[in-house]
């Protein structure tokens, strides 16, 4: 066990898999000599050489399509999008080719696409997005969104092991702000299994990624008034329906929280499922807190108004508590 940042935990998991399995390679823009825009692969090229840590041209299509071809030929590629936002340039290759290849052609495509996502540092409309719901909608893809260093390591290893295309949403705001004990040995965290971040009895908060910590701060502020349970989904596709329903039935009040835009965000799916399957266990309408339906703005006061804040969650929890 040693203390690691969220970013170091991802690096550690990736490096361990590369040492263990020579089929694993990394490809992306500036991932080699430079070590990646956020330095997740710093020092990797020295250790593994230029053909396992591949600096690609500025070509998201070539990166993801190249990973697909290499995976079908038996490799275990891990692609880095410099920012999650740029995955739009590779949409076709995830959605048209990789996602459907198993179903229609019987060919598994075991690739991982790492997606530094999320806002909170004035990245503006093109360096701040959380596009997980767009991909969770596509049958054949898996979407993982770790919230802690230990999960980041265990889930990157699970993602590499998984025989399907996995989108690994790593939240940039957590990269260096979050530090915790991470086991040194290799371990996996199952994809599709939620984690109870905080146990409570009065209200369930269903969330993932950086919002887990926003929810935790809000719960702390209210700890003398309301007993809040926080369910960290860890992956939105597949998502742990059973854990969510169990928590909803236990507390009877649910707040769904995410950093992505509200309309069509993955929270809508969660709220609809609870309404369908646990309606009679509810004591209040399900409440959603999410970003408004706008692009992510640049200027700090605008961005702060866009991303759900602790005060927003506190207000939502109070409202539910009083219902």
């Amino acid at each position, binding site marked *: 066990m040693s203390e690691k940042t969220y970013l170091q935990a991802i690096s550690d998991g990736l490096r361990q898999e590369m040492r263990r399995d020579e089929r694993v*390679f990394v490809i992306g823009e500036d991932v080699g000599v430079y070590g990646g825009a956020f330095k997740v692969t710093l020092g990797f090229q020295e250790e593994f050489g230029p*053909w*396992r840590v*591949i600096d*690609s*041209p500025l*070509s998201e*299509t*070539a990166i993801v*399509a*190249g*990973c*697909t*071809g*290499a*995976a*079908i*030929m*038996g*490799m275990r*590629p891990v692609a880095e999008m410099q920012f999650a936002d740029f995955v739009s340039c590779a949409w*076709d*290759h995830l959605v*048209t*080719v990789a996602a*459907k*290849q*198993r*179903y*229609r*052609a*019987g*060919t*598994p*495509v*075991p690739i991982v696409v790492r997606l530094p996502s999320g806002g909170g540092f004035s990245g503006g409309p093109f360096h701040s997005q959380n596009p997980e719901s767009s991909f969770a909608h596509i*049958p*054949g893809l*898996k979407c993982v969104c770790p919230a802690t260093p230990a999960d980041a390591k265990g889930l990157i290893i699970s993602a590499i092991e998984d*025989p*399907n295309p996995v989108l690994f949403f790593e939240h940039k705001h957590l990269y260096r702000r979050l530090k915790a004990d991470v086991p040194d040995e290799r371990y996996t965290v199952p994809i599709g299994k939620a984690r109870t971040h905080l146990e409570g009895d009065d209200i369930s908060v269903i969330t993932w990624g950086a919002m887990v910590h926003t929810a935790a701060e809000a719960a702390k502020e209210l700890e003398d008034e309301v007993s809040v349970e926080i369910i960290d989904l860890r992956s939105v596709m597949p998502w742990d329906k059973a854990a969510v329903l169990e928590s909803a039935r236990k507390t009877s009040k649910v707040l769904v929280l995410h950093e992505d835009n509200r309309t069509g965000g993955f929270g809508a799916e969660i709220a609809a499922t609870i309404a369908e399957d646990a309606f009679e266990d509810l004591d209040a309408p399900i409440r959603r807190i999410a970003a408004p339906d706008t692009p992510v703005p640049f200027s700090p006061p605008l961005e702060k108004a866009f991303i759900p804040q602790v005060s927003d969650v506190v207000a939502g929890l109070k409202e539910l508590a009083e219902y």
Partner: protein
Amino acid sequence: MAVREAEPLSSLREVREAGLDREDLLDVYRNLLITRGIEERGHILYKQGKIPGSFYTGRGNEAAAVGIATAMGPDDVGTPLHRDMGVHVTRGVEPWRIFAQYMGRSDGPSKGKDGNVHMADLKLGLLAMVSHLPAMLPVAVGCALAFRIRNERRVAVAWFGEGAAARGDTHEGMNFAGVRRLPVVFVCDNNQWAYSTPTHLGYSVEHLADRAAAYGFEGVVVDGTDVLAVYREAKRAIEKAREGGGPTLIESQTLRMEGHAVHDDAFYVPKELFEEWARRDPIERFRSWLRENAEMGDEEEDEISGSVKRLLGESIRRAEESPLPDPSELTEGVYATPEDLDTPHHK
């Protein structure tokens, strides 16, 4: 612009130097007949209402497809498209499975999950195409990347049409392959019409093969109705890639002899163009060549065409016996399991 134009082969000796003996030539002829036969029979089945959806053929492109596939090694891989039935045939896909695929039956390579030529047998080194052209081109580059990382002497072949040459996937795939000198051969089936769009509305260079220079590799133009010329150029390019010489772009020139798909009567293609290219029919052309240069006589010719006819008849019968998929299979196979990874390429 300096692209090389391929020369025709004029004797059995030249063919032998290029790597084919007389038996191989007869196999090529048989594969050409099977290829056209599958599509002609398929067209009839479509009109009989036995094939749902739409139906595409590669009439006029048979020699290009068979010629390239004949030059591929057993461990090479490729991403053939909807005009390249000859690649599937030459790599050994059994025709009855192709008919089963057309008819949406359980024994089609896609088990009814996808239709028409959206199929491939990975065990034979082929990857199933998607409709978004040329999405499989950079995927083939990825196959070549795997070969390069593992230092394997294998080559990937990436097909695309002159229409798809306008898309960014073509550029990104070729650029990356050129930068890394990957073992991949790009084959452009230039059949002059992208649905109803003629070449002058699709690109502004003289030959698409001219573009190879921009990516730092060689471009070659070949007459796609000449199976031996196509074979020889493909063989050169594939062996060059195998030896570490990097990619080649082969532009194979043909005319799409039918509409984009069966619903399209191709009214927009000048009648004279069809007449001109009908005189260069690739199969008739090779048949004459075999009679003149390889002593193929009536008896041998009849034996080959008779056996192809029997094969196709039996194949259709067998395909029609294949069951339609059960609706309960609808949700199966969206996600892969670890056992699925046990394929020949996942070592």
